[in-house]
């Protein structure tokens, strides 16, 4: 009985080796990636061909190519191996204990203000998980950069990833009460021409400020101060120097304290959704599942997003 199971395990392993050879078109490269010697790789593939009773690969001195039967078998093996991995992951995710490294990405400010506190609280609950926060203002490739969970702001492209909506935010124009007392309040977008503007030059900012509402206007602003971070632009606005445009969450503490106030709220653009995204679907590992459950609950409870 054990021998039969072992034989089946060998068959899975042989299929993995064959798939790797087909992908790399090299016995040596496949061996390197699978930590095996080239003769061992060759022997396994030959055994597989013997069991199946047909040639899967054409070997030349310079390359390895799939035969017609090999190409069909390659596709079937890929499907079977993916299914096997998914079944293993699903079982581990459903019943397993969260362990390993959890990599979470978000934009710099959102990550620092909202994701980091959730991560630290989560890590306290699950001591066998190590956290890695990747907070950057650029689009991170979830698969290439090995991301487990991403928090995305804005409308999602059709990626095939699993996304859970946790709230929404708006782009807002803000200034300090002292600034408004000195310079008045803009009541229509075109009023911005006579105000001092601070602009952030970090990612996703434009000098053409678009507005929603009935008119759906767009106003090109002429900032007198450019800052390379949102934090600096917000600090300048809070000092009463001028108006800046940011995402509402970025000034949540200053709005609560009254240090900053928003203007032109009737011209707000359509709100931007916030999603928690992960690439593993229902086959997510225990650490990913538990973190998503935890983070979704916390983010949805935030009064600035709901």
């Amino acid at each position, binding site marked *: 009985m054990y021998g039969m199971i072992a034989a089946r395990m060998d068959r899975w392993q042989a299929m993995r080796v064959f798939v790797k050879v087909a992908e790399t078109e090299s016995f040596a490269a496949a061996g390197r990636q699978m930590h095996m010697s080239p003769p061992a790789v060759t022997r396994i593939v030959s055994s597989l061909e013997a069991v199946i009773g047909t040639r899967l690969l054409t070997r030349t001195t310079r390359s390895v190519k799939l035969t017609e039967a090999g190409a069909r078998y390659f596709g079937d093996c890929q499907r079977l191996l993916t299914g096997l991995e998914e079944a293993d992951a699903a079982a581990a995710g459903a019943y397993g204990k969260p362990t390993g490294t959890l990599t979470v990405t978000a934009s710099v400010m959102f990550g620092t203000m909202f994701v980091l506190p959730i991560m630290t609280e989560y890590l306290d609950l699950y001591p066998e998980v190590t956290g890695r926060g990747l907070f950057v203002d650029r689009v991170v490739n979830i698969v290439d950069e090995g991301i487990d969970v991403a928090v995305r702001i804005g409308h999602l492209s059709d990626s095939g990833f699993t996304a859970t909506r946790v709230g929404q935010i708006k782009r807002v124009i803000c*200034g300090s*009460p002292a600034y*408004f*007392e000195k310079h*008045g*309040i803009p*009541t229509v977008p075109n009023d911005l021409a006579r105000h001092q503007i601070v602009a952030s030059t970090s990612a996703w900012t434009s000098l053409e400020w678009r507005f929603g509402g009935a008119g759906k206007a767009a106003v090109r602003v002429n900032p007198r101060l450019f800052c390379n971070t949102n934090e600096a632009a917000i600090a300048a606005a809070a000092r009463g120097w001028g108006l800046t445009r940011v995402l*509402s969450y970025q000034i*949540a503490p200053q*709005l*609560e304290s*009254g240090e900053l*106030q*928003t*203007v032109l*709220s*009737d011209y707000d653009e359509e*709100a931007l959704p916030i999603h928690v995204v992960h690439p593993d679907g229902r086959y997510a590992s225990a650490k990913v599942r538990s973190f998503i459950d935890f983070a979704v609950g916390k983010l949805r409870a935030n*009064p*600035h*997003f*709901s």
Partner: protein
Amino acid sequence: MRRLACLLLAESALTKDLITPVMLIQIELAIASTRGDRDSLDLLEIDAKRMALTAAEIDAAKRGASFDAITNIAIKFALADYADDAAEITAAKKKLAAFGVAALAPRLHAFVQGLKLPTSI
């Protein structure tokens, strides 16, 4: 004279636009909160959420404030007017004037009077 009339007409149109349903519901939330009127607050919160106000904005209104600069001072004026607090009314009117929206005051006053509960039936 004609120029002054044009300016007044323009300000009247402007203030009409500035008093929006979103501003009015925040004023209603603030006044209902000072009254401790739980039933009204529940209904107003549902309407406020329909208008896409966040929970934080609703909480601020219930504390008598707004994240929006004009709505914030409009709420201060409305609360003072509702309480017939002459000193606070004067202070809020000064602020409205400083922000360039003095003409909001009479319109807000009319709205607040409509919210006052009748003293006798």
